[in-house]
């Protein structure tokens, strides 16, 4: 079965804040049509301070949908609405020590329920703008709708280009058949044929100098720092060698069980921001490798 973290299992077997909150003054009902899961979030908000006093969930869904709902209510309780609104689906997944890529939509549903509940509280109408398709690339959790949109918007013609733009296909490469099929469909619509041996157009981004690239990496790490420091940890850039970025995890992050998770999170963010594949490795591994070499 799924590779669920201990934390996911724990929140599934013993969900927190299950059931509807009495005297709720904010309700958010959302669902994901494609997978059938659905979630109702009820909140009791203090009208004076806009603080979430109580949060409860009712979920029709799988183990990770229930665990994500439980995690969401724990994260937002005691927060002000505006603080709660910045909670991302990645935050929910991180709180649970990660979710399998196929299950990330469960955390998206949690965030959407929150947005819907806040809109309900403020007398606004919430519109969902997020459409979900079948998962194509499991390495980077990229779905068909996303690939199609990007192919259309940028006139992409090759698998390699799709990988440049979306990361899809940049890992194990098992999904290349699926990506080729999407390219074939979209190109046929446009009266073109998919040509598997076509050369990828060079990525539009101008190539960064080494110095620019390292600065960019630093900026990304800088942006992650507040989050790490909140957990009493920190990260320090040690070296960049090709696609490998060596870092030192310090404070509570070093040696803690979560270090691996955190490295993965940092790597994902770097890949997103830099638009290239990047591997984040603890600097200690660099020394070991040097010793072995």
């Amino acid at each position, binding site marked *: *079965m799924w590779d669920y973290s201990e934390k996911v299992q724990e929140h599934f077997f013993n969900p927190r804040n299950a059931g509807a909150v009495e005297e709720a003054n904010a309700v958010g009902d959302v669902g*994901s049509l494609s997978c059938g899961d659905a979630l109702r979030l009820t909140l009791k908000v203090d009208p004076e301070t806009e603080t979430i006093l109580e949060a409860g969930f009712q979920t029709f869904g799988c183990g990770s949908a229930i665990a994500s709902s439980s995690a969401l209510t724990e994260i937002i309780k005691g927060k002000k609405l505006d603080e709660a609104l910045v909670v991302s689906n990645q935050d929910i997944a991180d709180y649970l020590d990660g979710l399998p890529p196929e299950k990330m939509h469960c955390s998206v549903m949690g965030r959407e329920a929150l947005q819907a509940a806040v809109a309900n509280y403020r007398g606004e109408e919430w519109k969902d703008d997020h459409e979900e398709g079948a998962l194509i690339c499991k390495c980077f959790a990229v779905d068909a709708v996303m690939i199609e949109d990007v192919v259309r918007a940028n006139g992409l013609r090759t698998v390699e280009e799709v990988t440049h733009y979306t990361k899809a296909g940049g890992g194990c490469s098992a999904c290349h058949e699926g990506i080729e099929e999407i390219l074939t469909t979209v190109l046929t619509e446009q009266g073109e044929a998919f040509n598997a041996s076509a050369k990828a157009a060079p990525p539009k981004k101008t190539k960064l100098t080494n110095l620019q690239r390292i600065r960019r990496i630093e900026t990304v790490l800088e942006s992650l720092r507040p989050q790490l420091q909140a957990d009493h940890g920190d990260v320090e850039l040690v070296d960049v060698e090709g696609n490998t970025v060596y870092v030192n995890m310090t404070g509570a992050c070093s040696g803690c069980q979560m270090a691996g998770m955190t490295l993965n999170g940092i790597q994902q963010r770097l890949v997103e921001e830099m638009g290239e594949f990047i591997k984040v490795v603890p600097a200690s591994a660099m020394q070991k490798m040097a010793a072995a070499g």
Partner: protein
Amino acid sequence: MSEPIYLDNNATTLVAPEAVEAMLPFFSEQFGNPSSLHSFGDKVGRALLNARRQVQALIGAEHDSEVIFTSCGTESDSTAILSALKVQPNRKEIITTVVEHPAVLSLCEHLEKDGYTVHYLKVDKKGRLDIQEYANLLSDNVALVSVMWANNETGTLFPVEEMAELANEAGVLFHSDAVQVAGKLPMRLQDTAIDMLSLSGHKLHAPKGVGVLYLRRNTRFRPLLRGGHQERGRRAGTENTASIIGLGQAAELALANIEQENTAVRRLRDKLEKGILAQVPYAFVTGDPGNRLPNTANIAFEYIEGEAILLLMNKAGIAASSGSACTSGSLEPSHVMRAMDIPYTAAHGSVRFSLSRYNTEAEIERVIEAIPPIVSKLRKLSPYWSGDGPVEDPAKAFAPAYA
């Protein structure tokens, strides 16, 4: 905790101890290549012939040479379908059903991209076919009919013998995926018009990675794998001897126990189903309860989701499977549940219990006891549920904004 209970025998089965025993020498002293002339090979060759005859007896084939050993059920399905297309290049249509196993469906969908027309027979709410619709589709353009004998999710049986007759009269080849039926219902292929049939070892207490394609004598055929002369050139590649010996032994056991499948196993299945339905409201059997495999019960628990049910069952030491989207890794609920038009609030909560002759009365009683509290625990979390029943007009009371 007491021993875990295995009720997922349509997914795979325990290898019968007798089959394990029979296989062991073929990992050690009996290592010869059955194609070799010397005594090392010759002994293994004879053992293979024996296994072939054991399978022949189980499926009631007229000749042992009609049994071709393959690497799995999927390979047998692919071989049959692709061969039928190869031998009749002018026929560009295939008839199959919407509820086939992916081993057939994915290949058919792929063939559509190559220009073939595939007719997918629909099913009604109980998973039954419309034979008139089928008869109307048979024509000189059809290369092959491929229809499963029993559905793996619901156990519902299709009238493949009658359908094979109709195909035969129309001059169309007929293949059946009988992976779920072999060993559970008696079969005498020599009295039918079925041309090709697939079975898989691991569904009948033989090991994984071995299957059979039954190929009626005089059926035109093109191999999937060409190479050496193994399986009379119809499936090249040195034989997986140990597994084939295991399959032969398992086939013999299955034949000896087929009566028990239809009495003892059926009784336990019925007891399980009645026991659960008597205690759990808003639950129903999917498929055609009057016409299905004796070992399968597929129950839809409304307003809750299957993966969550399975996780709690697993914690209670009970193994089964579900048609829920979330257990498959795709986002789609089971194509079988959707084809039967089961509302999604029930389709997602469908759980398949599949028994074997190794299950006991005490196990079934434990499961009957364990399921009701699991269902009520999850219903307490469900937005469609309130107190002892679904909320009034569930579709209206909870109508989420869908993405």
